[in-house]
């Protein structure tokens, strides 16, 4: 079982495989360092799609050796996105990554019904593995980036994605906490209504094998002493592997707070596609960006096919 993100990187490095990654609009000072670190360590083979001169300039500014780098000239950002997606579709590359292009334009190419990378009928979402020094294992969270207010069906898709990703880290029966402000069900908190339905679905075998409860707050989810203190019976026992948040507005500040104040690092990935798609925030540390790539390699290795509903 992989319990820390540096173990993930070790694992990918030791696999001896090189994964080809196409970076759309690659003249991106925010990601180029992480890409080249992974390339230098031997597990990543980048194809840089963008303005050649600018890519070289970025490398020079960052004092990175760009010799031997596969750089392909692209006329524009959207064309670079289309080309990157096409390369992944045709199997020329294993992974697609967003460079200096806007997320909207990048995802438009990814989600294109004919030429994109979506599994038929899949819901696009995002799962992130957080390495928090104060927590005894990795904590998977969803969705910090894609679905603003997931409905029941989207929440179920998010859970399936998170279970699938946790499974690749060797977690066979993950504990999933459905996060709310309190553990009570209330019609004032619409998410709590969905959570009740999800728990019952798990009980009735409608979800993949997992231990699930919610609504619970972060304490009940992650602090083994909290259920006793609060007098709440929960199967989670304060030992959650996965946190499902009711909205981006709750999930996004949660992980950013942990990164800024608690020294957390992350590895995150778009879900719903049949090839790994890397989409990172500029704020993320170089190390987290590097972990995102390691995660994409792991997903590529084990097949990025989404769990069937």
């Amino acid at each position, binding site marked *: 079982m992989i319990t820390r993100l540096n173990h993930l990187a070790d694992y990918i490095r030791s696999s001896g495989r090189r994964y080809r990654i196409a970076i759309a609009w690659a003249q991106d000072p925010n990601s180029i360092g992480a890409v080249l670190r992974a390339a230098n360590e031997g597990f990543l083979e980048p194809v840089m799609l963008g303005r050649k001169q600018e890519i070289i300039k970025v490398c020079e500014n960052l004092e990175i050796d760009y010799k031997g780098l596969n750089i392909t000239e692209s006329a524009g950002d959207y064309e670079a996105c289309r080309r990157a997606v096409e390369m992944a579709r045709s199997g020329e590359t294993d992974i697609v990554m967003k460079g200096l292009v806007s997320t909207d334009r990048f995802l438009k190419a990814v989600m294109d019904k004919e030429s994109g990378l979506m599994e038929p009928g899949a819901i696009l979402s995002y799962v992130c593995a957080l390495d928090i020094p104060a927590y005894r294992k990795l904590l998977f969270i969803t969705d910090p980036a894609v679905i603003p207010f997931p409905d029941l*069906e989207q929440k179920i898709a998010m859970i399936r994605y998170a279970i699938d990703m946790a499974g690749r880290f060797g977690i066979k029966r993950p504990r999933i906490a459905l996060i709310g402000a309190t*553990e009570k*069900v209330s*019609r004032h908190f619409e998410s709590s209504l969905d*959570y*009740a339905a999800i*728990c*019952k679905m798990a009980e*009735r075998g*409608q979800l993949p094998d997992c231990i699930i409860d919610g609504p619970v707050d972060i304490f009940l989810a992650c602090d083994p002493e909290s259920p006793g203190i609060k007098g709440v019976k929960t199967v989670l026992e304060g030992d959650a592997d996965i946190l499902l948040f009711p909205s981006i507005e709750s999930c996004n500040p949660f992980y950013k707070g942990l990164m800024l104040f608690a020294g957390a690092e992350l590895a995150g990935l778009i879900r719903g596609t049949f090839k790994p798609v890397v989409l990172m925030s500029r704020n993320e540390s170089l190390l987290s960006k590097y972990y995102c790539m390691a995660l994409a390699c792991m997903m590529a290795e084990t097949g990025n096919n989404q769990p069937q509903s």
Partner: protein
Amino acid sequence: MLKKLEDLKNIVANEPVKKLVLAPAHDQDSLGAVIKAASDGVITPVLIGDTEGIKQIAHENGYDITGLSIIHEPGIEASVELAVKMVSRREAEILMKGKVGTSTLLKCVLNKEWGLRTGKLLSHFALFEVETYHKLIAVTDVAMNIAPNLQEKIAIINNSISCMHKLGITNPKVAVLGAVEMVNESMEATLDAALLSKMNQRDQIKGCIIDGPLAFDNAVSIESAKHKGIKSEVAGDTDLLLMPDIEVGNVLYKSLVFFAKAKVASVILGAAAPIVLTSRSDSEQAKYDSILLASAASKK
């Protein structure tokens, strides 16, 4: 464990005899059951209505009404008002509908000044004795609430639970009925069922064990539940079936009576006192058993 409606007599026998007020009492359909219950010591009746009419019915049917308390009030609504006021003043513990329309009776019960309002939702509670089930099984709501929303379902469960506690069923197993035992977003009853289960787990509904959705078969048959691989404390051992709406409830009620030859007792809960509100089509036995249930349910 209660296996037969007759077992309710054991509860009643250990309690002071409760006073039941029947209005209007000049009612061919209910008087007989009241008088039989009185002679069995289940209740002490107060008959409000047209004295002559009461005597005539008693004479024609051979009922012995000597020594029974009769209050002469020939007006239909006036007799009901008097009866409700008696219960409201705690001079009687059970209200029973006689020869009057349900709406008139309920209008009096819900009167803001002298009615029997408690702030709770009124709900219908039916208790069945079915030969093919190992204990009595309660069903709610088959007659009062048409399409209860979540809050109303909670109120209906709470009414039923507190009644069942009085019947000595300390931690009733509640099955929230659906067409299937799976959660299905397009079947609202299954979503409500999941919510009610979770609220029960979180102690937001206490004094019972709730599971749902359960389909009727897995609610009452452990074999069926096992066959479907359902892990549930409730499945196969249900004490109370919560209906998704009145249409399902009413059809189930009538199928149990007509096809399964079930015996049934029913009572309206949620008012200051249990209300016996049987219909003309109920058998004499059902009326008698309803009085018995009301008497047990009015246990302090």
